[in-house]
């Protein structure tokens, strides 16, 4: 028992190494994940942007946070996919019949999700810089942005874990992410909520994406962040903890 627990970190390390190799060998997954948000960014900035009144000078600056959230929401569907494939192929069964930490295979996938989403976020920020995105944020603010995005990724990754473990088909494993990708559209990510009809506006102003988007936006603009950041963090934590508890329950049931 002791030996098994002592090896937790080295086991997770082996698992992380494994799925990072997967990513390195199928860069198309990262390209797919980054291309859609970049296309949205181009579309909104160069096609719709002219007609959208946000009250700011730079629309790229305004919309980048929402684009990053869309990228993460679609990125985590690959975590569900990879998990599902492991369940199907018998690889998990092999791991679970070995003397390794019980949850190591799962944590390997969760860490991989963090790393791969960080890569696609960086790529998108680079494209945004080319498109004229500028930030006045200091290192502390950038760190806070990274922290919020990491928390958001973790929260959605645990939802992806539930989907990956309980799906019965490959399509099912990925389908749960569609509503998540859609959420930023009904928030202040692309247009200010003031322009929306009352019911939609009430939803938009009280759903998690709006507070997360506004917290990141204020941080990147180098402006003081108000309550938003605490609301954003609270949302991320609550979603993460609930999804984690559910995911672990499903995992224990599926993996004896």
């Amino acid at each position, binding site marked *: 028992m002791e030996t098994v627990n002592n090896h937790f970190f080295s086991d997770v390390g082996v698992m992380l190494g494994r799925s990072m190799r*997967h990513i390195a*060998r199928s860069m198309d997954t990262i390209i797919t994940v980054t291309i859609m948000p970049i296309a949205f960014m181009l579309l909104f900035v160069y096609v719709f942007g002219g007609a959208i009144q946000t009250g700011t000078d730079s629309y790229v600056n305004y919309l980048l946070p929402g684009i990053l959230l869309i990228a993460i929401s679609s990125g985590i569907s690959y975590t569900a996919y990879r998990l599902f494939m492991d369940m199907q*192929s018998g*690889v998990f*069964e*092999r791991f679970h*019949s070995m*003397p390794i930490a019980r949850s190591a295979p799962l944590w390997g996938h969760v860490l991989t999700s963090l790393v791969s989403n960080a890569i696609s976020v960086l790529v998108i920020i680079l494209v945004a810089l080319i498109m004229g995105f500028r930030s006045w944020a200091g290192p502390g603010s950038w760190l806070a942005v990274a922290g919020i995005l990491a928390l958001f990724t973790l929260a959605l990754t645990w939802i992806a874990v539930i989907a990956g473990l309980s799906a019965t088909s490959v399509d099912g494993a990925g389908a749960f992410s569609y509503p998540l990708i859609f959420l930023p559209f009904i928030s202040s990510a692309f247009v200010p909520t003031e322009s929306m009809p009352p019911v939609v506006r009430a939803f938009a102003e009280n759903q998690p994406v709006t507070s997360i988007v506004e917290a990141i936006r204020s941080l990147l603009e180098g402006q003081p962040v108000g309550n938003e950041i605490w609301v954003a963090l609270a949302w991320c934590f609550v979603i993460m903890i609930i999804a984690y508890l559910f995911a672990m329950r499903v995992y224990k049931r599926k993996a004896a």
Partner: protein
Amino acid sequence: MMHMQDQAILVKGLQKSFKQLHVLNGVDFEVKRGSIFALLGSNGAGKTTIVRILTTLLKQDGGTAAVNGFDVVAEPDHVRQSISLTGQSVAVDEILTGRENLIMIGRLRHLKNSRQIADELLHRFGLADAADRRVSTYSGGMRRRLDIAMSLIGTPQLIFLDEPTTGLDPEARLEVWKTIKELANSGTTVLLTTQYLEEAEQLADRIAILHEGKIIANGTLEELKKLFPPAKVEYVEKQPTLEEIFLAIIGKKAVK
């Protein structure tokens, strides 16, 4: 205890149901150390359920099972330390190379010389030339050989092979049979499940026939031959004839 010493597996009154379906209705059998034991049964007879219980992937509803002297429910970590599972679906990582698969398992078993062990196994299983190719390019027989090679890492005392040749063509089946025979010669205990009568006949020291959740016959091939009406034996002999014809045409000889 003497008893513990010669028994690699000791199963008593094993019961398992899935909802209304009684899969195992009191299964008893023993496997002697260093022998090849075949569980023979048609699809759905409960072979895989037994393997999953013995490899700690599933908990039984009733009865006891001890593997290498350790109870599967009370001491699962000790059981996992002393066994390896080659499951029904080939549990190899398609995106990694053969060598990487072997090294990964070596690291998960916390061995110091994983790289060297991988090299030895690649040679022993005739995979040296394909070592640095991705497993997705391997043939069915090569995958199964790699799968079995992965199970040998850490020299477990007991290996479970759940339908190791299902879905393989006759040529590949012969390759796998050869591997299993070599395994047993080196002193490893093997529990093999199969639905092919000839496979049990070729490989096993003892054969148990599982039918409707019970062991209905258990003995050496000679003992079983006496139990069964000649008509059935004739049917058994017909199958290899066709196989021999096939193999003769493509220029391979059956393993004797």
